[in-house]
């Protein structure tokens, strides 16, 4: 695989940013410092980082309610994301979107989305816009295994396939739709096989191996840019935390999975795996990786300070931005 040292460092930085940012967001949510529902993707960092490493800035993504990782991987700033999650006017959406709805147009982030499967057709449309305007930008649509049972999944794959749209459908299969194990509500074991129904390539990817995710995404991007149409990638992964932060308070512990299952997946941590690979291949020194962690901690501390210090929106802003001029 053709990947530079610089890219490897970026990939690790991205995964660390996601891990530390979301760990902090979880803690702040538990402490009651931030409003609303918070969904974190701790344990799933490799799919976000691997996919976005294969994209350029003008490429676009759509994301999910569990979207912090995708946004960070596409270049979203921690301070403005944190401010948004705090509901502050300095946030990406001036405090009107919150954790589930962060958008950054300048980075091609068309939005996290609170509706399961809501972003899939939007990604197809973003690919269509590339075709209409004659640009070779691709769009990656992140979604979960739960969304693969939504009509929008099937309609979007069909539409993208029939129009050969430059879209990469990235299923992060973490095994659960909310609190329901996938196997009890999904007719197939592997989401990737559903690609066959639409005549497009479908690949099962180890979603905890960031380099494998990067490799498959790079191939899909090349296909898309060449006008050969969409690809479905299924990144098999696992979420260490609950569906929503704080769920144990109303569901109880081990309501739908055992602690030992979670612990077993923690052993497959995508960050540790990457660190080991770096040590084995000698590509990046441990000291360099540690420096990245330290840098990220500083960046995160600054982001939290920024969010805390920022003003809440003025109530007069409540009616702004409903309509465009």
């Amino acid at each position, binding site marked *: 695989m053709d990947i530079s040292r610089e890219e490897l460092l970026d990939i690790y930085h991205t995964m660390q940013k996601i891990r530390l940012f979301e760990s902090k967001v979880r803690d702040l949510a538990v402490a009651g410092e931030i409003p609303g529902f918070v969904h974190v993707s701790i344990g799933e960092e490799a799919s976000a980082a691997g996919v976005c490493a294969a994209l350029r800035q003008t490429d676009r993504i759509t994301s999910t309610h569990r979207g912090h990782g995708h946004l960070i991987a596409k270049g979203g700033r921690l301070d403005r994301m944190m401010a948004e999650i705090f509901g502050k006017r300095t946030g990406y959406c001036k405090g009107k979107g919150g954790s589930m709805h962060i958008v950054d147009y300048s980075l091609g982030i068309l939005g996290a989305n609170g509706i399961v499967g809501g972003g899939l057709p939007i990604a197809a449309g*973003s690919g269509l816009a590339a075709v209409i305007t004659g640009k070779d930008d691709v769009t990656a649509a992140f979604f979960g295994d739960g969304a693969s049972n939504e009509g929008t999944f099937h309609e979007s794959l069909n539409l993208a396939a029939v129009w050969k749209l430059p879209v990469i459908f990235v299923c992060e299969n973490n095994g659960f739709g909310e609190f329901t194990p996938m196997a009890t509500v999904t007719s197939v074991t592997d989401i990737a096989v559903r690609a066959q129904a639409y005549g497009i390539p479908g690949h099962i990817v180890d979603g905890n191996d960031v380099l494998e995710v990067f490799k498959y995404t790079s191939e899909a991007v090349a296909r898309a840019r060449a006008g050969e149409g969409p690809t479905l990638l299924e990144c098999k992964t696992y979420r260490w935390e609950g569906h929503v932060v704080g769920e144990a308070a109303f569901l109880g512990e081990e309501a739908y999975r055992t602690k030992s299952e979670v612990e077993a997946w923690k052993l497959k941590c995508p960050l540790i795996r990457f660190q080991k690979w770096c040590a084995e291949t000698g590509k990046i020194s441990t000291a360099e990786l540690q420096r990245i962690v330290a840098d990220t901690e500083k960046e995160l501390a600054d982001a939290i300070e920024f969010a805390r210090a920022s003003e809440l929106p003025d109530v007069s802003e409540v009616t702004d931005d409903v*309509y*465009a001029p």
Partner: protein
Amino acid sequence: MPQLNFIQAINTALAEEMERDPLTFLMGEDVILSAFGATKGLIDKFGPKRVRNTPISEAGFVGAAVGAAMAGTRPICEVEFASFFYCAFDQVCNQAAKLRYMSGGQATMPITFRAVFGAMGGAAAQHSETVYAQFLSVPGLKLVVPSGPSDMKGLLKSAIRDNNPVIVFEHGGLGRLKEEVPGGDHLVPLGKAAIKREGKNVTLVAIGAMVPKAMKVADKLAKENISVEVLDPRTLIPLDEDAILASVEKTNRVVIADEGHLRGGAAADIAAIVADKGFDFLDAPVRRVTSLDVPIPFSPPLEKAAIADEARIEAAIRDVVGR
């Protein structure tokens, strides 16, 4: 000025706007052959890249229009019959309508949705509904209901140039209605009502296909010296409240005629606005003439009985002017 029917007016508006702006394109169910004729021939002018038949999958292609709009193009998206919007409700109401607000003003959503609605003779419940009421309480959308070819052309062109999701509702029963339509850049602004006929005794707010019916009733009552002012709001969002209230201030009576249902509908909304802001102008109760609260039936006499008609409009007017 050329005489055009409703369908020709739509076709002309689409062709002019697609000619004007290369970022516009047409997508939807059977837009190449065109079941109603509104998009007929556009494929010859603009080619398959900009005139696209979609699969019959409303959530998928309506959502794709949302994504295409967010990514810098201006889709004109046809949902053949307005009742099919139910299949794409999430994409219209949760996505198109909200993304600008939720993104703090970053997203622009220049989509024009077009859909045929209304009772048109035996199409039955799933092809005859007047569904704009379902979108009235969704902030972020604009709703356009033209009543004739000239307004159709001007409103559709304005909708296409608007930077927000606009749904243009085209009544299926108005297709052959002809009138003089200005050529060239004939634009009718969104949010501006039209007084279709001036009058002194009662304001008849008529929406969409109720306008031609209202004009007939007004003609008939004029012979008895009942002077009816016919006001067509033309767009329900934005709604020209000032024009409605000014007319009621002048006539002191109001009847609202709409093909939608009675409960929770456009007529209910306008009646509430008049009661709320124009109560002191009123000499008689506000009357709503709407379709019955039933799914629109198939059989011709039942269909006729279900929808608002001239006799009911006339009776409502006689009631309020008699007080």
